[in-house]
């Protein structure tokens, strides 16, 4: 994948706040959790970690972009995109714990949610995304070429984020 910095940020924001959010909402209730943890607590964990994943992701993308400069091809092989989950999961875990939304015994729930969301989004960037956005792969991962296209990106990602935050707030 040949990403520009803008493309990285846009891709992360758009995918996490659309597909990532839908997936999170779809699976939260059925993820394994201790019997004494209510379902809204499960949603709290998964939504919080989604939001944290997005926000911290902005920082990570800067790091990856800097590392990409050391590569002659200035690209980011798909395998890197999969393996970076290993470095990203740690701060997300810390943050979710620091936010005090993680009851005991929910590590498995957190892990399954994080891993499946990551893999899903990774698989989508490998190809299917081009089916709805044929330009995406030619534009370094950016969705917008014209101001009009940027609006779509902006609306999709912000709607997703707002929904996630409202849900999170409602559950709180």
């Amino acid at each position, binding site marked *: 994948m*040949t*990403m*520009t*910095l803008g*493309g990285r940020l846009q891709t992360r924001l758009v995918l996490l706040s659309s597909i990532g959010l839908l997936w999170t909402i779809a699976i939260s209730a059925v993820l394994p959790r201790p019997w004494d943890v209510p379902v809204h607590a499960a949603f709290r964990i998964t939504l919080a970690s989604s939001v944290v994943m997005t926000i911290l992701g902005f920082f990570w993308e800067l790091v990856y972009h800097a590392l*990409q*400069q*050391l590569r*002659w*091809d*200035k*690209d980011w092989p798909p395998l890197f995109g999969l393996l970076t989950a290993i470095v990203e999961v740690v701060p997300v875990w810390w943050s979710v714990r620091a936010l005090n939304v993680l009851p005991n015994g929910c590590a498995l729930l957190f892990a399954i949610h994080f891993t499946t969301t990551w893999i899903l989004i990774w698989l989508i960037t*490998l*190809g*299917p995304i*081009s*089916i*709805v*956005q*044929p*330009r995406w*792969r*030619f*534009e*370094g991962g950016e969705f917008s*070429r014209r101001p009009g296209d940027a609006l779509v990106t902006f609306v999709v990602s912000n709607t997703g984020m707002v929904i996630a935050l409202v849900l999170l707030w409602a559950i709180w």
Partner: protein
Amino acid sequence: MWDDALLAAAGIPITDAHVISIGGGLGSFAVVDFLRIAGVEASQIRVLSRLAAPYDTFAALARASQLRPEDRLRSDSSSTIDNVWGWPGYALCEAWTERSLSPLWRVVTEPILTVVAGVQREATRIGWGDMLVGCRAEVVRRRAGGGYLVLASRLDDTALFAVRCQHAYVALGYPGPRLLPDTAALREQYGACPQVANAFEPHEHVYRQLVRSPGRVVVRGAGITASRILERLIHDRDTLGARTEVLHVFRHYVPGPVGPPWFRRAGGDGFAYQPFNFPRAAGGGQLRRRMLAMTSEERALLIATIGGTTTARRRRWQRQLSRARREQWYRAVVGRVGELDLDGSGRLRFVLFNGGAAPRPEAADFLIDATGLDDTITRHPLIADLVDCGAGLNALGRLDVEPSFELRTMRSGAGRLYASGAATLGGALAPVDSFWGLMHAAMEITDDLADQGTCEFPGVMRSLTQWWRWMRNRPP
């Protein structure tokens, strides 16, 4: 500028089309494919070509340059020129049709075969045959009142005819193999002269002769084609018992990696290594972004740094060559072949100018030039005519195109003229002469034509439905 009356007066029949694609190679194929997906009817498009199938020239050049049908191509799995979405790639498709997972990690596939089969399938799907007009395009001229007139001659009886169109696209590939002056002179003097071969012309006789009797061959060039020629020579030695000795002449010898840590290209044993013709990011990432903002001169400089003569670093080739060096039947020298001639017995003799060392007389049975294709694009009469009519040239001496691949100075009323492929190197898209680049160009051209109201650029819904049609092999 021509008008219809002029042609009518000359007795030249005129037919109509909305969009004309001249060349009919893979570049034309990419553009026509995208336009069809964007909703242009086959009846509105005409392809003027000497070829029956879009891959004919590519396949012929590939065969001559020792790219076997089962060899890996120098592009990645999403550069599927027959699938504008790049997904699913070949491996996934194969896995689907075979209902098995094994193609996903089968390393050795049949890329050229697969590309050819893919293009064939897509060509049939979009109705390529109905759009094709077998002919030689002579000139493209602006038409009084807008659009263009393309003059062409039939392949069978060379009768002239003209096509009137609103928009035109030109991709003629290379004018031919690049003959170095000394080989050209030798051919002039001795006729066919089978002792000197060009990698892009059929030259099986060289390998056959070398298997029959031991011989010495000189290879010039250090690109991917030179790598394949060497591979073939070594293969014949290993499996057919040839006793070939190879003298490899490098013009520039790359001893190791070049450049600062943040811009370092791998290299060694004379070769500069990179997976594709250009770093991947020149096709759609940060390098392309940089180039979009550059002037023609800056682009030419950057292209010289990130392009040039390179080959892919493949472990097999490296092992083969290091064994060849050890066994002393492969010798790499830096320098230049001079005073090339034939001796009385028909053997080649020449003087090797080897840097600081004294010039040395040498002899060989064959010389294979793998120094590329002729990049003087004005050797295409049609392009020379365009330049005469005002098409600009860029700093590399190729056609100067906008990021939308339009030849800006050739605009004709509401009509637009586009070009891509080898003739347009030096623009914002460095790998413009590759599967990826041709697809990229096709997308930009379609988008630009969508702005003119010719078609609808595939947005989310159109793209999705068209993709589904592609998957089911239904016409667009």
